């Protein structure tokens, strides 16, 4: 580590040793394994007799390691990670917010963790009850009329939501032609509209970073299927004229789709259903603290108004005359099934645990804390980093690197330097409407003490940019590897490990190599 270059605070981080680790393939030697089987007590059958032509002649190179080797392999790798359980992620809920332990406890209860999708409905009433209660809670929080928990993740939710809009327009005799999307939108919005067969029309943001209602009014016509709007927007600004936006669309028979990515800034304060939204998705990881990014499957529930209810994916949950919950497949107008099974049921459990553990007042407070934390960072950093929009921030604040680029330092450099201070980088270069964006979302979970460490680090880096920009441009200095050649990695990707020509043969299946 270049300690001479590290002039920052050591309150947050100190260098310590981590062990080097090769790929499991490189550590492999033939015949090693982590188990020992009892002698075969049934007649041996040749695999080819069972599988015919499906038997692979060559199984390829697979790593062979003993139990302790594989345990150490993954444990060592895990010590290289930055994790939400180690410190703040300024990427915020987009990537991972804190996963409260009560969620994990509940989702591991035997009856929940061991439930099987093909268990009969009569034996799944508890699991269906979880689905029902979560649906009811989400409907109340969003102010909508109906919901499906089927979509596998946020973008899949968008796809489902726009399919509903399309089915709705089709039922009126005309699917319509285009979807309007503001230039500050998440990239998945235009991809969704295009996947559903709509032409995408780009709507430029106004000087406050919001929707220009007059410009929108000129664009909307009888060919407009919907506007896809993120509220608060990706620059963390609430659309104050959202009700007018809804009116402009509804006047022409178009629908208002809300990307619920930033719903964690609204929960308990205002409801999309009340400000004119017709259909929206939620990201359970963003708003309701489920794991994300390798930590667990996604979940993108879609809530809608009554007019779209008939088109919801089949089946929908219903309560029978016997008082039991069951899946209703008799949905003639449904857009169909968007996924086979609820493999992400564990996310429903976690989201529900979060909602119930917090309760209405607790949820309202998480919203207030998320907004307070973002504005605290804004207030503490706005004298050193450029604030491109003066509009009040909600749950995230977006700065730009305008003042730092004068010294040749860009947002990506500041982010990399932040690693030296013990923080995961913030979101760089997004939203695209802010050149050189630094998007910071602390989430509600961070304490003032952690926020102060972050603020100190960011202020220190701003000073370094003025006094010694080189240290920032060449950062990080404290990691096992510094800057990767991202360009070559993207242009000439190496996608798989290739075995060296010859490896040292090791005698197969000797007891010494087991365990």
């Amino acid at each position, binding site marked *: 580590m270049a300690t001479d270059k590290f002039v920052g605070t050591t309150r947050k981080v100190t260098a310590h040793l981590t062990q080097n680790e090769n790929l499991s393939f490189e550590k492999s030697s033939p015949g090693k394994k982590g188990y020992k089987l009892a002698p075969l007590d049934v007649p041996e059958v040749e695999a080819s007799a069972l599988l015919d032509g499906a038997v692979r002649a060559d199984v390829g190179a697979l790593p062979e390691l003993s139990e302790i080797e594989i345990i150490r392999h993954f444990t060592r790798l895990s010590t290289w990670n930055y994790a939400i359980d180690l410190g703040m992620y300024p990427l915020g809920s987009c990537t991972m917010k804190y996963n409260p332990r009560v969620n994990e406890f509940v989702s591991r209860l035997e009856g929940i963790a061991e439930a099987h999708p093909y268990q009969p409905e009569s034996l799944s009433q508890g699991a269906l009850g979880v689905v029902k209660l979560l649906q009811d809670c989400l409907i109340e929080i969003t102010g909508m009329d109906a919901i499906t928990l089927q979509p596998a993740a946020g973008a899949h939710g968008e796809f489902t939501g726009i399919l509903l809009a399309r089915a709705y327009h089709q039922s009126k005799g005309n699917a319509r032609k285009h979807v309007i999307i503001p230039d500050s939108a998440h*990239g998945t919005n235009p991809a969704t509209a295009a996947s559903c067969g709509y*032409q995408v029309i780009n709507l430029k943001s106004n000087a406050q970073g919001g929707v220009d209602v007059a410009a929108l009014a000129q664009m909307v016509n009888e060919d407009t299927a919907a506007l896809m709007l993120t509220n608060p927007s990706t620059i963390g600004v609430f659309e104050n004229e959202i009700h007018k936006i809804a009116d402009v669309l509804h006047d022409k028979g178009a629908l208002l789709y809300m990307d619920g990515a930033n719903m964690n800034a609204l929960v308990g304060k205002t409801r999309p259903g009340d400000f004119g939204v017709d259909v929206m998705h939620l990201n359970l990881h963003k708003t309701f603290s489920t794991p994300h990014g390798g930590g667990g499957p996604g979940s993108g529930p879609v809530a809608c108004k009554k007019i779209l209810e008939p088109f919801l994916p089949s089946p929908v949950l219903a309560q029978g005359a016997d008082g039991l919950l069951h899946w209703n497949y008799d949905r003639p107008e449904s857009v169909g099934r968007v996924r086979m099974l609820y493999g992400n049921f564990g996310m429903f459990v976690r989201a529900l645990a979060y909602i119930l553990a917090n309760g209405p007042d607790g949820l309202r407070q998480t919203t207030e804390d998320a907004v307070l934390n973002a504005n605290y960072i804004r207030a503490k950093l706005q004298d050193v980093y450029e604030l491109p929009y003066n509009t009040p921030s909600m749950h995230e604040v977006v700065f730009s690197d305008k003042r730092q680029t004068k010294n040749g330092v860009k947002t990506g450099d500041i982010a990399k330097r932040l690693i030296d201070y013990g923080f995961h980088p913030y979101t760089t*270069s*997004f939203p*695209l409407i802010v*050149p050189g964006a630094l998007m910071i979302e602390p989430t509600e979970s961070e304490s003032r003490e952690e926020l102060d460490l972050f603020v100190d680090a960011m202020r220190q880096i701003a000073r370094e940019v003025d006094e010694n920009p080189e240290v920032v441009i060449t950062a990080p200095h404290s990691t096992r590897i510094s800057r990767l050649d*991202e*360009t070559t990695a*993207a*242009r000439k990707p190496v996608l798989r490990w290739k075995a060296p020509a010859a490896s040292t043969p090791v005698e197969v299946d000797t007891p010494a190599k087991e365990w």
Partner: protein
Amino acid sequence: MAYPEKYKYTKEHEWIEVAGNVGTVGITDYAQNSLGDIVFVDAPKIGSKVEKGAVFGSVESVKAVSDLYSPVTGTVTEVNEELHASPEKLNTEAHSAWIMKVELGDAAELGSLLSAADYEAFIAEETAK
């Protein structure tokens, strides 16, 4: 880098050079500079129709994927295959590394495009923001 005066430009940062009834389209130096290292170009198929102001393809840089907007309406007659193996040409030779050639559907459309001077004024304004 100077913006060639014989080219016309869009506010979405494409250039077009017109010879007879065929327009050659690429992205500007300003565009490649804002995108950073370009790693992939998604060009349209030969024979496909493009529409003025509509998306005809995309470029992927290490930062983001960005749409390409056609300066004119017409039919794609040629695409620059070289960019498939060497997308970096868009960075190093922005004003000669072309992406597609289009047979113009309506030459009158060219009138609404920017001249080199207008485009330079436009990007000066963008940069000042």
